[in-house]
């Protein structure tokens, strides 16, 4: 079974099935490292800030934000769209790449899916709190009530969003958990005492039978097939929140594909940021290799270029429309009082990803890490630019206003990062961060160990076989 040497190995170093189990399950059984405690403490502190600011918000009202009558969406919706976008890479990796049979996804899908779920939780908190009285949020659902019954307004894109985000969270969670069951059973079968009890409860009696695996693969495939259009629909519907309105700068038909590409772009940047830290701190270099970093950087390059062309297209169409309000909205974006936000977005999203045309930078951890942070910042500014610059200059100059966030909004943003990272650190401690069973299923075809072994058996020069595996061709 000598695979074509054009494919680089996805699992490097000396490995075996039991070694893979050991490498990935061990951190769950061992005491966390100093770095884990440090990261977890910082995240908890930020989460504390979130609780504090949200409590203050709930007792006082949304008036504590910096919003005004003209700019009535600010950091809240910016952060909502930013977090939802980040979530999209997880589903893309686990669903779309499963359908395309991309083997490299097995090393990164588990943590990317976890990231999706945590990001969507952070995203959901914003519209929930923006509602003002979150304890009445059930009013958005079509429940029988004493007003008639007066039902929810299904003509509104905001209600579509409620359904899209809640479906997205539920389906991602279910998909993630179905994939986790076999790995939880692996932990169970190694554990004793309380840990065995807990993981027994969580692994549902999984037994690894041929019939069980057959059903598992069938369910995974269908869930992947469902998640693929779902992930496209979610950001499409998020973009409808803007595109179906009549605000110049929002009312554009390019929004759905432009938002989806932007979401994948920012999501992969966040995956990259997290994985570079994780592979180092949890010693997973054999599983998350430079080849993985390389392919993800290629996706960042492609989606970044789509986003860049969308920015330029928007500008062109605004000019071509010959509609003065639309034209003004775009000139104001680039040269108005928020010019710095616009040019930060352009620099981070259009220029920095183009650096990935260089193979050397794609395979450099430092460069990948820095560029991924730049993309995260750029994509945050994209949402800020779309929302605030389109709103702050209304049709009547008498209602022109500026917007800047209050301390509550800033604390809530830092706090939501705290919520995200707290959940992620807990995940990294208690659940397998790499899909153990899935990595084993590509072991025969994609590990350095096996590639070299089969090559030697088939009489290929050993040195040549090794040369194939170090990625130097």
């Amino acid at each position, binding site marked *: 079974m000598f695979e074509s040497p054009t494919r680089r190995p996805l699992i490097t170093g000396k490995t075996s099935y039991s070694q893979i189990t050991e490498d990935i399950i061990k951190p769950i059984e061992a005491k966390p490292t100093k770095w884990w405690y440090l990261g977890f403490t910082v995240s908890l502190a930020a989460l504390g800030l979130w609780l504090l600011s949200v409590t203050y918000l709930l007792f006082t009202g949304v008036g504590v934000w910096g919003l005004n009558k003209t700019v009535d969406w600010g950091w809240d919706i910016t952060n909502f769209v930013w977090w939802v976008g980040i979530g999209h890479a997880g589903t893309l990796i686990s669903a779309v790449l499963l359908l395309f049979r991309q083997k490299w996804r097995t090393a990164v899908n588990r943590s990317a899916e976890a990231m999706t779920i945590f990001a969507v939780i952070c995203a959901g908190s914003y519209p929930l709190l923006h509602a003002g009285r979150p304890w009445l949020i059930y009013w958005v659902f079509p429940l029988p009530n004493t007003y008639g019954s007066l039902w929810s307004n299904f003509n509104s894109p905001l209600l579509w969003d409620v359904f899209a985000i809640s479906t997205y969270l539920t389906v991602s969670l279910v998909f993630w958990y179905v994939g986790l069951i076999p790995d939880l059973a692996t932990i169970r079968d190694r554990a004793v005492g309380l840990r065995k009890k807990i993981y027994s409860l969580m*692994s*549902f009696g999984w*037994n690894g039978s041929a019939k069980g695996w057959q059903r598992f693969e069938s369910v995974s495939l269908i869930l992947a097939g*469902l998640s693929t259009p779902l992930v496209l629909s979610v950001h499409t519907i998020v973009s409808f929140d803007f595109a179906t309105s009549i605000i110049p700068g929002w009312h554009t038909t390019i929004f759905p594909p432009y938002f989806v590409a932007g979401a994948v772009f920012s999501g992969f940047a966040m995956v990259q940021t997290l994985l570079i830290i994780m592979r180092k701190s949890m010693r997973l270099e054999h599983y998350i290799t430079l080849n993985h970093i390389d392919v993800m950087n290629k996706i960042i390059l492609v989606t970044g270029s789509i986003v860049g062309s969308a920015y330029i297209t928007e500008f062109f169409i605004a000019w071509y429309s010959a509609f003065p309000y639309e034209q003004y909205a775009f000139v104001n974006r680039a040269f108005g009082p928020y010019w710095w936000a616009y040019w930060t977005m352009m620099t981070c999203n259009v220029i920095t990803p183009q650096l990935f045309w260089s193979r050397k930078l794609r395979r450099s951890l430092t460069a990948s890490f820095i560029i991924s942070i730049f993309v995260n910042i750029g994509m945050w500014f994209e949402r800020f630019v779309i929302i605030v610059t389109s709103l702050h200059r209304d049709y009547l100059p008498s209602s022109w206003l500026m917007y800047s966030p209050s301390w509550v909004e800033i604390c809530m943003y830092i706090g939501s990062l705290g919520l995200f990272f707290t959940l992620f650190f807990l995940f990294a401690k208690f659940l397998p961060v790499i899909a153990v*069973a899935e990595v084993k299923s590509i072991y025969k075809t994609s590990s350095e160990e096996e590639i070299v072994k089969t090559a030697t058996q088939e009489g290929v020069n050993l040195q040549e076989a090794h040369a194939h595996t170090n990625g130097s061709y």
Partner: protein
Amino acid sequence: MTKKYILGLFRDEVPLLHAVHELRKEGNKIHEVYTPFPVHGLDEALGYKRSRLPRAGFLFGCLGGTLGLSMQAWMLGVDWPMNIGGKPALAWVDFVPVTFELTVLITALGMVATYLVASEFIPGNEPKIPDPRISSDVFCIAIPAEDASSSVGSRLRELGAEVQEKEVEL
């Protein structure tokens, strides 16, 4: 209820697949095969029919789509039609996003529920496994001792397995 099984333990999926083919050709009855990850072609080698779960998924999808669309049409078109600038109450194009989301939601939840029930995966269920290593690096063929011919043990050894006889519930 425990039963006596002859277990053939393998360290690799290639000899395992070969052994399953050979044993079945020789007319041995295999109770089940346990592996740490999905082994390609194992279900065909064991003669398992294709899973009917996708069909369940399709039915749940039809249910979700119908429910989603008819719910919106009934609420806004029949139960409380509203005059919004003279526009039609039954604006079906507006119902597409929610119909789509509900189709996906009900298909996913329904199919996963069917999967868990069909596989008897219930939180806290005791696992019925022949050996705890099957979730790490051991591949196991379980043959019921009562149906097995006396030569099955030596045949398994010939095919590369380590053989055990065990009283387990599978």
